[in-house]
């Protein structure tokens, strides 16, 4: 098991009418994206309009299951006082959710073990300003 790196030092998100549902679900440990009632396409980040057909009827759908790392970086630089490093940041896509890519931290393995194509599970952890931030868990 890798040492836990605290993620609470940082800059919190500004929450808008469009993004409030995402951050509320995140607090419950759930990853939600928008799904178009007209064409079924999923969009992220949430903007209240479908990126595929521009339909305005958007509902939220929860993403569960396995994601795949599209790319990543391991950050070593202390950008803010008290920022704990190193940590890996992963850009995750989902086989069953085309068009959705979510960026978050990586847990469950040493950051240096991040690879492109590795599988991860959806998760969250305490982030800046009391928000829960995406924090994917490496699948062993």
């Amino acid at each position: 098991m890798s040492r836990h790196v605290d993620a609470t030092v940082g800059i919190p998100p500004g929450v808008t009418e469009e993004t409030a549902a995402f951050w509320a679900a995140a607090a419950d440990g759930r990853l939600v994206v928008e799904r178009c009632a007209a064409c079924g396409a999923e969009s992220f980040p949430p903007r209240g309009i479908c990126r595929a057909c521009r339909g305005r009827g958007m509902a939220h759908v929860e993403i569960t299951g396995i994601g795949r790392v599209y790319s990543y970086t391991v950050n070593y630089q202390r950008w803010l006082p008290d920022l704990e490093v190193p940590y890996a940041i992963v850009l995750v896509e989902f086989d069953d959710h085309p068009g959705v890519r979510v960026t978050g931290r990586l847990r469950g393995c040493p950051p240096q073990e991040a690879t492109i194509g590795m599988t991860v599970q959806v998760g969250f952890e305490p982030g800046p300003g009391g928000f829960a931030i995406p924090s994917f868990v490496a699948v062993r």
Partner: protein
Amino acid sequence: MSGTAAGTELFERRFVISGVGQSAIGRDLNQSGFQLTIDAILAAVADAGLTLDDIDGLAMFPGGGAANLPGYANGNLYEVQDALRLSPRWRQGSVEGMVLPFFGPALAVAAGLARHAVIWRTVKEGSAAHKAGGRPAYGATKPAADGPLAWLLPVGMLSPVCQVAPYMTRYMHEFGVTREQLAWIPVTQRAHAALNPDAVYSKPLTVEDYLNARMISTPMCLYDCDVPCDGATAIVVSAVETAPDLRSPVRIEAAAGLVEGRPSWDQWEDMGRVGYGAARAMWARTDLRPGDVDVAQLYDGFTIECVWWLEALGFCGPGEAGAFVEGGQRIGLTGQLPLNTWGGQLSGGRLHAGFGHVAEAVRQLRGEAGARQVAGAEVAAVGNVGGFEAGAALLTRW
């Protein structure tokens, strides 16, 4: 006329770059951003062979509202106008869509709204980093992350370094390019910087130094990141009919800025390929080809951004930049494509947004680049940033 839609004239034919000017450039200058701005504007106007009374267009990048990093030091556009007693007919503090530093002023001049427009970019990021004890977090000037940054800063992508690093990860993964190969970009540019008295770093850099440097955000090490500095660059753009009155104008063969892809660093669909849209749009406006380019000033906020432009502009094929730059000969001053001859932002200093690159392209085409002059330079390529903020241009001798 080639490469244009039927019935239209290239807007590039209606303006020239008439002047470039810079303040002192250094890591920690004891001058305010406002004074650096004034220095650069005065130098650029004199360089054009004009006086302040000729200036009737005023612009800066970015506008006053955009200060995501400490050390954005353009000053206030109104105060600059007032201090210089200017009466502009056109002005703009642009925030989004920089594409090319001279694009906005060129459009104003081409449309007849101004005859001589000056645009500037001033940074005091060197002294800001010094005061903060290191390069600060992007967005640290604001209490919360807005817009696309709301998805990046909170998870720890606290700098453009972290935001761009996954592109380099993906690029190396897809094409099997190595850090040993890409090291030759910063290493060669450092050799160029040694011939530029205004460069921030001029001490020789080796591939070993590069490979031993500390990681900032993998796979990007210290020398893959541009150097925060203090300094101002101003560019004067003039109506083409004023050319006989100008000291040494530079012609624009083609310029294009394409706003393509998802405008967020983490959502760009294909991180192995960046800038192709802007490059295609530019080449469609000219009969010149990559082989005609004598010198290239390609944006290098990070090493990988140079790679994007080398491939997108067709100087080499997709995934071939590693082999192209390896050994440094091709991109050296006497090579087939001398690259970032002032040292680029990696060694010359992060003058930002292509301002330093345009200034150097102008100097090279005029034969005013001193010890780093590329013999017989007649065509210069400029690339600015990349991805969703991408602009490319070909500048030629008058």
